[in-house]
């Protein structure tokens, strides 16, 4: 397969404006005739559905929850970046672009990242107009804070609930279009297949989660904004239902999957407390603005944190990275925490945690100021652990949080399938091998409000569409295949639950395809993962039937797909013989233990093609050209 990124010609800062002018438009009177399916209602899905509705397209929005507001974007805490330079500290579009390219360890496309930085300012304006209650100062101006990987304060926030407020803004915009009749909303529907007609994406198959009916929906274009795949690890900070089924089934229909091994481990999560753990909870990176990370200088020190005197504490991030200190990027902070614990400096009963301490900040700013900034996060911590972070330091440990990889898209956010657009975390486009904090919200909304509405219009205006009906063969065939998979799962009647399989699979993923990867470990994973998958298809037990609400059946389908995707992640990680960003191969590191890239061999996007059966994908490469930023060893010292 030849892959074309379709990056417009011209200077970096003119590419998007030139492209916008060159793209074709659909006359306002004709837009109603085009039907667009949008799957997912998080930041990217809700914002694109609302915007396409405003433009006058016939939009159909699908969501597996009862309400768009339940999408996992709601849980993002810290903030959203924009180079407004309101803080007057030297920020600019170029600096945000530069920080993001560098933060991504030079594995993202320059043109995409520049465009992201360019439109991000408008996102703030848009959200303000919607009534998003961003933090303000007493004069009424917008307030900013700083985040990892940046030396300017460019992060806009709404206490520790920024994702919630931005999603509620997009949800409100979507509601307005539903009310106006330009968007039709389908709740509790899960997409289970993509339907292609004459080589173009022309519809989806969805299961009605209330009555189990398998339904067909035809359209002229399909947008997937279905989030990331961190739950392949079972334990992650993603919501329980977050899954990769929509993108994986599109992959099996021909969409390339790019850089699956670029997974992000977030440094500040609440440590695992026991075998029963069902998910992990993130503590926003913003806490590293005022919290100091440390471990005891003495190995295996079992004293309480408050009994360890100042000179016996190792503030290792401040020691190793004097200029960025506690605000180094996520991949660096996570790796160092793991290293400290692996070397015996871990704290807490499991010894798999480091301290995040607010004592100095409370002394300097007062308890009220800390409450004002982080109150809800510290309360959440107390609720889960039973410890008061105002009195004792928090215990934190890294956890899987975000996936930079995703379906491959060109500059227009279109996948390798014509008419299939991928937005937000579901695509691979902007974060390279590591995403900086407060950039996920930015990307989701940039894609949805300001990029895809233009590029989808261009696609519709540039193509001819033969009439397609839900009764035709392509749809009935896909429906039959979905139904037969469901029947097969229900008929196994084995002895192990879906969760038990998922947990077992996730543990192998975490142990061998997690934070530190080696050739040997990955090879072992590639042996174990298919074994677990084949056991799953023989021994899983799902009760109930396919004709009403069956949460076990829903989970089983998602886990079945994770078990194929997990193997692809391991294959990608094994093939990429370098360390970059979130992908750390222990064989490839500098003397100081930093990720060592191999630009000569691996400066490309690995876009994997489904070959017909899991475990034997075909590799396509999209070479990355750096015209503006010269890739160098990332340094945060």
């Amino acid at each position, binding site marked *: 397969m030849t892959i074309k990124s379709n990056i417009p010609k011209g200077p970096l800062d003119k590419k998007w404006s030139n492209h916008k002018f060159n793209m074709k438009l659909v006359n306002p009177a004709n837009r109603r005739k085009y039907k667009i399916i949008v799957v997912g209602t998080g930041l990217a899905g809700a914002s694109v559905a609302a915007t396409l509705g405003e433009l006058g397209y016939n939009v159909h929005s699908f969501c597996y929850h009862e309400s768009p507001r339940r999408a996992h974007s709601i849980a993002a805490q810290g903030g959203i970046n924009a180079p407004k330079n309101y803080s007057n500290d030297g920020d600019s579009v170029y600096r945000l672009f530069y920080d993001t390219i560098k933060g991504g360890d030079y594995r993202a496309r320059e043109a995409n990242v520049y465009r992201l930085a360019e439109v991000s300012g408008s996102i703030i304006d848009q959200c303000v107009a919607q009534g998003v209650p961003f933090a303000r100062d007493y004069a009424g101006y*917008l307030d900013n804070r700083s985040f990892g990987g940046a030396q300017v304060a460019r992060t806009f926030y709404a206490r520790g*609930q920024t994702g919630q*407020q931005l999603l509620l803004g997009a*949800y409100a915009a979507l509601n307005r279009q539903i*009310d106006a009749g330009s968007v039709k909303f389908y709740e509790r529907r899960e997409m289970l297949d993509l339907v292609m007609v004459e080589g173009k994406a022309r519809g989806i198959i969805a299961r009605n989660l209330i009555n189990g009916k398998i339904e067909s929906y035809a359209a002229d274009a399909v947008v997937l904004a279905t989030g990331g795949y961190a739950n392949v690890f079972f334990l992650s900070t993603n919501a329980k239902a977050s899954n990769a089924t929509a993108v994986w089934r599109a992959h099996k229909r021909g969409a390339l999957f790019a850089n699956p091994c670029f997974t992000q481990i977030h440094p500040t999560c609440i440590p695992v*407390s026991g075998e029963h753990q069902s998910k992990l909870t993130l503590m926003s990176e913003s806490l590293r603005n005022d919290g100091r990370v440390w471990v005891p200088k003495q190995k295996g020190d079992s004293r309480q944190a408050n009994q360890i005197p100042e000179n016996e504490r190792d503030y290792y991030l401040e020691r190793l990275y004097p200029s960025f200190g506690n605000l180094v990027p996520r991949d660096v902070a996570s790796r160092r925490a793991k290293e400290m614990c692996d070397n015996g400096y871990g704290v807490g009963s499991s010894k798999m945690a480091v301290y995040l301490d607010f004592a100095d900040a409370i002394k300097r700013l007062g308890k009220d100021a800390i409450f004002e900034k982080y109150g809800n996060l510290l309360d959440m911590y107390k*609720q*889960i652990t039973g410890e008061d972070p105002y009195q004792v330091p928090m215990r934190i440990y890294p956890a899987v949080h975000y996936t930079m990889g995703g379906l491959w898209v060109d500059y227009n956010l279109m996948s390798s399938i014509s008419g299939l657009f991928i937005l937000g975390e579901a695509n691979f486009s902007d974060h390279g091998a590591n995403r900086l904090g407060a950039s996920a919200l930015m990307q989701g909304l940039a894609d949805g409000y300001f990029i895809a509405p233009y590029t989808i219009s261009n696609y519709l205006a540039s193509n001819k569409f033969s009439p397609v009906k839900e009764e035709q063969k392509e749809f009935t065939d896909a429906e039959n295949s979905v139904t037969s998979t469901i029947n097969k799962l229900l008929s196994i009647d084995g002895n192990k639950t879906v969760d038990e399989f998922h947990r077992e699979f996730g543990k192998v993923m975490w142990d061998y395809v997690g934070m530190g990867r080696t050739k040997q470990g990955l090879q072992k994973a590639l042996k174990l993962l298919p074994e677990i998958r084949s056991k799953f298809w023989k021994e899983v037990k799902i009760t109930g039937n396919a004709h009403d609400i069956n949460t076990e059946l829903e989970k089983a389908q998602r886990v079945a797909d994770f078990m194929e995707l997990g193997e692809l992640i391991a294959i990608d990680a094994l093939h990429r013989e370098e360390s970059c960003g979130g992908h750390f191969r222990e064989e490839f590191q500098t003397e100081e233990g930093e990720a060592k890239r191999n630009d000569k061999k691996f400066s490309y996007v690995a876009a994997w093609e489904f070959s017909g059966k899991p475990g034997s994908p075909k590799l396509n490469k999209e070479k990355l050209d750096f015209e503006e930023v010269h890739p160098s060893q990332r340094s945060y010292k």
Partner: protein
Amino acid sequence: MNLTLKVWRQKDKNDEGRFIEYSAKNISPDMSFLEMLDIVNIDLVKKGETPIVFDHDCREGICGSCGMMINGRAHGPGRGIATCQLHMRSFADDDEIVIEPWRAKSFPVLKDLMVDRTSFERIMRSGGYTSAKTGGIPDGNSILVPKPVADEAFDAAACIGCGACVAACPNSSAMLFVSAKVSQLALLPQGQAERETRVQRMVAQMDEEKFGSCSNTYACEAECPKGISVVHIARLNREYITAQL
């Protein structure tokens, strides 16, 4: 810990429903309430029975999916938390725990503990927004919102739409939910243009959905996982009356 659960089981909308007793064994006090139910469900599936169905997703108290009456209280004992944030250390060994779905006419039970809250959706669609279209928007700092106003708007906007307010209310009133949105947008300059039509339409839809009236018991505020104040209900009333004049 070992516990006895009395759980409401109901096949679908039309089924009458009944309590069924289960025992939850070897439960760690560090588990969350939903993790305890996960364990019970694994046992049920292994026995060939259908698991207890409940809505849940983020499990960190922000998506608003989960919600059940636990020993007669919305989201169970403890203040300012959703069901997913409730931990088993709030219970004692050998406790009996009664678990029911939200009880309200406007929230019909779909199955077991899962209810249909689309009535909330229809209320939000009837005006819970500013009509700001994408694009053509002035700079964020051209609209000034002093901190105390932004903070109060945020307090209202923090609603997670879980429905605990309705479930806790003896009248099944949705006033706290509706007032949170009306109040947020009434406080902010961005919400002024549609201030009157918004409150009228949202209240009309709320009545159409057959939610009850507010009789100031304040059970909603007591059980709200985000601690949303009934002051917003007062503001809703004022907004509504002003809009009628």
